[in-house]
């Protein structure tokens, strides 16, 4: 004897949530059939259980809780909740931004390293670079993409591993290439600056998306941009090529190391210098991507996404204004 119940579900922040909820609920022996309607935020369940609808909602919620979903018979009054979260998330995000800019201003990162650049010094420079203003572009991009991927994609670990591996390999090979060809090519500032501006625009867009400005009938999606993101982020080649692309993003430290690799005179030495530099930046970037993944699958997910959104928009605006000043389009607004 099957009965059909319809519950209201909250916490569905992504397209993949449908699959996740259905998978978890199908594992329950008394549940025969599940279908999630993301638009209406309802879950329809066919069950042989004799429990009342209220009890079923409690039992099923206990299974879904760790992923941040709640089932209820009555529709929860959700109208206020997202606003509540943004009031918490904005100060949290701004505190991170203040700490970040204070660190830049403190002069702690201006470590003068003398003498020959060896793979060991380039590893240290990588460590410094990963918390420097370069973090505004490279880290901001990694954070926004990671949060976005975690939001849309249940199996994000693989994507992040490919990204970081791709980044290490590209840095090493490109560094080796620079070392082998020597002074044949110059580093084009305008090219990297334009790339940086594109990256900062992506960050602002993803940040607004994380905050939820584009979600649900508030602002209409700019035609298919997020569908495009969703499509490309599921391909193996995408994290690889983004890892490759970070080599060309504007970052003074990366550019200095590229010049060192250029002057190093051989494939092997350029290879080692850029590999050591990329390894130095790895801990911070890995923390950003895997950290967002673990937050994204916890009950703090909504707060995390919105705080991350605030941070990413702040870094994106910083990078955009700096990039425009670097290109000479606007006057430099600040010296950080």
């Amino acid at each position, binding site marked *: 004897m099957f009965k059909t119940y319809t519950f209201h579900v909250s916490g569905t922040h992504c397209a993949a949530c449908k699959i996740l909820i259905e998978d978890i609920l199908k594992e329950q022996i008394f549940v025969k059939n599940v279908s999630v309607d993301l638009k209406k935020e309802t879950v329809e369940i066919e069950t042989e259980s004799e429990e009342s609808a209220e009890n079923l909602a409690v039992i099923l919620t206990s299974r879904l809780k760790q992923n941040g979903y709640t089932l209820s018979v009555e529709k929860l009054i959700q109208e206020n909740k997202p606003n*509540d979260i943004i*009031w*918490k998330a*904005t*100060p949290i995000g*701004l*505190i991170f*931004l*203040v700490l970040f*800019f*204070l660190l830049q*201003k403190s*002069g702690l*990162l*201006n*470590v*003068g*390293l*003398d003498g020959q*650049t060896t793979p060991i010094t380039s590893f240290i*420079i990588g460590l*410094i*670079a990963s918390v*420097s*203003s*370069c973090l*505004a*572009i490279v880290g901001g991009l990694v954070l926004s993409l990671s949060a976005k991927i975690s939001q849309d994609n249940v199996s994000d670990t693989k994507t992040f591993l490919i990204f970081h591996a791709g980044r290490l390999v590209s840095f090493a090979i490109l560094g080796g290439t620079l070392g082998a060809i020597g002074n044949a090519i110059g*580093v084009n*500032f305008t090219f*990297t*600056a334009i790339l*940086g501006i594109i990256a900062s625009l992506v960050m602002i867009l993803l940040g607004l998306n994380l905050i939820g400005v584009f979600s649900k009938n508030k602002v209409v999606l700019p035609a298919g941009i997020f569908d495009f993101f969703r499509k490309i982020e599921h391909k193996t080649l995408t994290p690889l090529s983004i890892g490759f692309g970070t080599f060309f993003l*504007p*970052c*003074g*430290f990366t*550019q*200095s*190391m590229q*010049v*060192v690799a250029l002057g190093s005179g051989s494939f092997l030495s350029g290879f080692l210098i850029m590999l050591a530099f990329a390894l130095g930046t790895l801990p911070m970037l890995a923390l950003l991507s895997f950290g967002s993944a673990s937050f994204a699958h916890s009950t703090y997910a909504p707060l995390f996404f919105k705080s991350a959104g605030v941070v990413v928009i702040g870094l994106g605006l*910083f*990078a955009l*204004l*700096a*990039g*425009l*000043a*670097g*290109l*000479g389009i606007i*006057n*430099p*607004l*600040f*010296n*950080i």
Partner: protein
Amino acid sequence: MNKTVSIIIVSALLVVIGIIFTGDKRSEQNVEVKDGIQYITINAQGGYFPQISDAQAGIPTKLIMRTDGAYDCSASLVIRSIGFQKILPQIGETEIDLGIPKAGKPLQGVCGMGMYSFQVRFN
């Protein structure tokens, strides 16, 4: 969290960011004239110092960029008005010929990413 509390914290934090961004712009004695040539020295490491220099217009002028272990953005210098674009050596001095600057046309240098800058004013 309470909405009002949040708004107060947010505005306070925005003020802090504003203070960090506008920062100090100390000027110091970094201009000297030797054998009829004006030399302006600017240190590049973790930004450019001093950020604002005052120099004389109408005499041959050279800009000296001094670096000492600079790996950050300040090593990648761009001066658009004279088409200068170069990664400065990690340690050393780079001499840039400015010709004979005209009064009232300040020279603006920025680093490649744009977050550090300096200005030389000619009077």
